[in-house]
Each structure stands twice: as structure tokens, then as C-alpha cells.
């Protein structure tokens, strides 16, 4: 190939284009954030406006102001924008029928991902910050979602009460506190207002171990609103040694396909200086490496 010469070469024209009364008026209106169509001889509306309709009839020169909202008639997702494209991130080209018109406009839709694109979807124009009388005064169109944001924000206090306070105070010192009613002898973590067997408060506080048995678990693989962790992660029920009721926490430090019922686990604590009155002082539970507990030993806790 080196036998043949080759050199870069740029073709560039500094042409200007006259716009005329129809296209010129439309483009001038864009400058002021106004979208207009033109009435055709047979009563239709074209946007963008043209001097003649597809039958060759001159349009009337009557302009109609339109809401900058329309419907996608066809679209294509462009995963890798080219140099001349209006957006520098993946976007869609689309044919958009502006409400109240009989033709469609070629433009782009800023939709983040192709899944948000659909023929028939509603889009609204996003105006360019700086406008100079070209079709790119509309920076792009964006999806109109058929629902309102409806956030709720209310400020409350949390007052955990005496039993839970005891539990949280314990956590602050790296202890797991349970409550016991001497009549049943069962230890609940955290302590409860009433032992369900006796109806008495579990007011006798005892410290239980930070080791225990994983009785059951689930692996979360789907994302959802408000999720703090990135899936996949494992959530399990742990009956701590000395307790008669499981607590729930994250299971980690082990490949997910090796997690099993009956596995012996131990709390992995945060560094002491980060401890608060929170169960989050424990990062997760991890295997101790001891032999598994037999099924019969935790069966009643399932």
C-alpha cells in the first residue's frame, strides 16, 4: 500500500442560506421559544412548516402556535454518537408528530437508554439555553412521563422504648443484649415488651454471644427503590448462642453458593471507634468454620 500516495483533505463551505417567509418565520420563532406550524390549503397543519404541501399546493401563510409536545412515530437508538450529532451521549433520532399537526419532524430524543424509547411515546421539546434561529434551538426532545412525581417527606422522632434502648445501649458497647422472663426462661433478642408465652415483660437482661447458627437465608438479586446495597447480597436469620429467637442480618465473607442452613456464623464488627447505638455496628455475619449445626438443633426456630 505504501506505493500509493494518500493525504488528508478537508472540504468546507462557508455558504449561507436564505430562509424565506415560511421557514424564516418558523426559525425566528424558535429563537423566542415558540413553536409554530403552518396551515395547508386543505386545512391541515405542518410543523416544521413548508412552503408547499406534499400535493404541491402552496401553504396558506397562516401560522398556528403549537405546544412543544408530540408523539414519536418512529425512532432509532444511536449507541455511539458521531461527530455531527447534536448530543454527545447515546440518544435516539426520532420522527415526532407535534400535537395538532399532520406531518412529523426529525429530531433527537434524550432518553438515557433505549428501553425508555417506544413508538407512540410522548415527548416534549427541551429548549437550548442559547438560541440563534436554527432547528437546534430545540436542544432535543425528552420523554413526557404519564405520571407526576409524588414524594412524601414527614419528620418524626424515633423513641425505641426501654427494652430496645437496652439493646441499643448494648450495641454501643459491642454487646448483644437479650431479654428474659423467668417464668418461661426464653431469651429474646432484642428484649420485648412481653414474652408471648407468659405476657410478662422480658425485663431480665442477659448478654448473648455474637456467634450463632444461620437458620435460613435469601440471596437478593433484583434492584429496588431505596436499596442501599448493590445486588447480589445475602440476608439471613441467625439464632445467636444463648438466644431463642433469630435476628436478621447480612451474610458475607463466603461465596454465595456455599451459604447453607445450619452454618455457624460470627458477627463481623465495625472498628470500635465507629460504634453507635445501631445494629449497623455489625457489618455482617461470616462463617466461623466450625462444623454445621444439626437440623434438629434449630428446627424450632424456623
Amino acid at each position, binding site marked *: *500500500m505504501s506505493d*500509493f500516495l*494518500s493525504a488528508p*483533505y478537508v*472540504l468546507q463551505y462557508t455558504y449561507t*442560506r436564505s*430562509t424565506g417567509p415560511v*421557514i424564516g418565520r418558523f*426559525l425566528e420563532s424558535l429563537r423566542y421559544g415558540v413553536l409554530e406550524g403552518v396551515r395547508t390549503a386543505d386545512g391541515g397543519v*405542518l410543523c*416544521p412548516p*413548508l412552503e408547499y*404541501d*406534499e400535493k404541491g399546493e402552496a401553504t396558506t401563510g397562516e401560522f398556528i402556535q403549537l405546544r412543544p409536545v408530540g408523539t414519536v*412515530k*418512529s*425512532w*432509532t*437508538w*444511536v*449507541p455511539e454518537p*458521531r*461527530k*455531527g*450529532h*447534536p448530543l454527545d451521549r447515546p440518544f435516539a*433520532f*426520532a*420522527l415526532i*408528530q407535534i400535537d395538532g399537526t399532520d*406531518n*412529523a*419532524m*426529525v*429530531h*433527537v430524543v434524550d432518553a438515557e437508554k*433505549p428501553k425508555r424509547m417506544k*413508538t407512540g411515546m410522548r415527548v416534549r421539546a427541551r429548549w437550548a439555553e442559547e438560541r440563534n434561529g*436554527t*432547528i*437546534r434551538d430545540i436542544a432535543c426532545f425528552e420523554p413526557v412521563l404519564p405520571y407526576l412525581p409524588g414524594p412524601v417527606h414527614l419528620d418524626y422522632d424515633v423513641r425505641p422504648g426501654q427494652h430496645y434502648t437496652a439493646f441499643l445501649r448494648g450495641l454501643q458497647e459491642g454487646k448483644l443484649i437479650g431479654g428474659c422472663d423467668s417464668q418461661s426462661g426464653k431469651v429474646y433478642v432484642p428484649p420485648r415488651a412481653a414474652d408471648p408465652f407468659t405476657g410478662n415483660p422480658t425485663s431480665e437482661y442477659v448478654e448473648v454471644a455474637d456467634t450463632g447458627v444461620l437458620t435460613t437465608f435469601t440471596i437478593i438479586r433484583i434492584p429496588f427503590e431505596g436499596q442501599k446495597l448493590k445486588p447480589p447480597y445475602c440476608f439471613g436469620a441467625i439464632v445467636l448462642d444463648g438466644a431463642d429467637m433469630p435476628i436478621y442480618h447480612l451474610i458475607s465473607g463466603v461465596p454465595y453458593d456455599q451459604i447453607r442452613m445450619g452454618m455457624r456464623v460470627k458477627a463481623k464488627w465495625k472498628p470500635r471507634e465507629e460504634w453507635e447505638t445501631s445494629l449497623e455496628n455489625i457489618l455482617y455475619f461470616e462463617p466461623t468454620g466450625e462444623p454445621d449445626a444439626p437440623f434438629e438443633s434449630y428446627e424450632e426456630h424456623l
Partner: protein
Amino acid sequence: MRNVAIVSFAQLPSVRVSHATDEAELVQPVTSQAMKQVGITQDDIGFTCSGSTDYLPGRPFSFVAAVDGLKAWPPIRESHVEMDGAFALYEAWVRLLHGDIDTALVFSFGKCSLGPVPDVLNLQNDPYYVQPLGLDSISAAALQAQALIDAGKATERDFAEVAVRNRKNALGNPNAQIKGDFGVDELLEEPYLSSPLRKSFCSPLSDSAAAIVLAAGDAAKKLTKRPAWIRGIDHRTEPHSLGQRDLTSSPSAKLAAEKAGVGKGKVDLAELHAPFAHQELILREALGLGDDVNVNPSGGALAANSLMTAGLIRFGEAASRVLAGKADRAVAHTTNGVCLQHNLVAVLEGE
């Protein structure tokens, strides 16, 4: 009306980059070969017409320079269209109907390897409303393909099947650029260029050139045993604005086919100029071609697509099969513009 026939055809193999040739160097071998096939020289040609676009090399008036590939002295009657060479063939056909000359040389050339073709083709869009958005040719065609899917007329699998069949047909074509026995599922795994179009649903870009000699009446019979007679030829165009067209059908191709008389007899084969796979489906419907018609035995534009030349090559591929006695009645088609805006259809017959 005079009977006019295609009497010879020559083309250069389509390649991605032809390092060795400028325009005149592409033109000279094909024009001289087409004339040599029927034993004539430029001195025997009554009219010469070419099709090309200066935006491929990016050099204004490059079509004038292409005349350097011809013997043009003493001065010749010459014309040019800024379109596919098949439209130059149409002009030459009209010129032969005048009756004062009997032969015409038609040629075209396209070097796609020199510039950014998808962006160059944006220059055929509306300069006020579309060009500033940078609507490249692949994205424009993709809007049409998606409309076809939304209308329930085709699926991506249908597109893949078109691509597979064309590139398999191209195995028998020494001039094709992309050929092979591909699997439909394999093509459906390619990433999108502009959804729903994947690379294999789009034609390649090729450097090539082609030439055809036309002759009228007895002159045609003297030049070759079995001329490919142009029994009907017509071209129609649609509105320029994409937003004013139903992109899922081609009324212009349908009307041109009716006027050319495609439906008047059995069609042995059709060479359709469909630079994107889904466009072949639209064209088959518009031309009324059933499953019994052998479409694109050459592999079509999906196997080789030298812009401004691929359409003339469709005429040449169809005609050469009639000239060789392998087909009695063939259809040749060429398109120009965005999303099949403009269509030319001809019916070619042996005796």
C-alpha cells in the same frame, strides 16, 4: 417507439479501498471493456452519459475529470447526472429515442473510501430542518426499519434472513465484496449501529465502477446475438421530507413498476438496489415479486455497494443474465435519496 437494449456490461470488482486508482483510472477499464465486448470504440458511440457524485471524493467537478478516462477528442456528446449511473442509463435511453443515433455509453464510478459516507449523505437531507441534526444515512434508514417493525410488517429476523440470502448469493459473484454463508442467529447477535440496524443489515462501502453499452433496433442485433431489450422503464419520486411519507411502503417504486410493466409477465429474476436489508422487503412488496422470483442472484447492494454505481450494476447484473440466455425476463431496480425516496424500475427481456 424505438426498441433499445443493453448489449454489454463491465464492472470492476468492488473493494473497500482501491488505493491504486483515481476517478479516470476507475472509468477507463470499464468503459473500454464494455465497448470491446461488442467490438466498438468511443468513435462508434453516439452519446455518453455518466452518473456520480462529487461529494464522494469531496472534489467539486470531479465528474468532469472523469472524462479523462474516455477518448473525448474529437469532442463527444456527453452528459452527467448527480445520481446513480442507472439514471444516466435512463437519460441515454431517452436520448436514443430521438432516433438520430444508435448507440450510447453509460458509466458510473464511486469511491466510497475517501470520505465519511454516512455524514456525507446527511447533505442530501433538508438543509434547514434536518442537516443541522446530523442525520446520518444509517440512522435515517433505521427510522424506516423501526417503522416497518412497529407496523408489524417485518421483524429483525426477517432483516437478518435478507442479509444471509444476499451474501450467500454473492458467493457466486467474483465482483462482490462481502460474501459467505452466515447464520441468521449469528447476525442477530451483532450490536446495533442505529437500532434496529446491525452492521450486516447495512451495505458495505465499496470502490468500484461500471459501464453499459446501449444500442437501438438493428444496431443492437448487429452488436450481440441476444440483446437485453428494455421493454419498460420508469422512475418516480416521493416527497423529500421524511415526516410526510409512510416509510413502510414505497408508492414510488410501485408506480414505476406498474409503468414499466413488471406484472405483465413472469419475472425470472430481479436485481433490487436495497442498501439496507429491510428495504428489500419493502421493494419486493412494491414490485409485487413473489417467492418464486430469484431476487439478487448477484448478492445485491448488501454484498457490494459502490455509491452511484450499485444501481447501474443492478442493471448490468440483470442484463448479463439475459444476454447469456440464463433468463428471459429480468427486473432491474435502482434507488436514490433517503429511505427509498426515488425509484427507477426496468424490465429487460431476451428475444
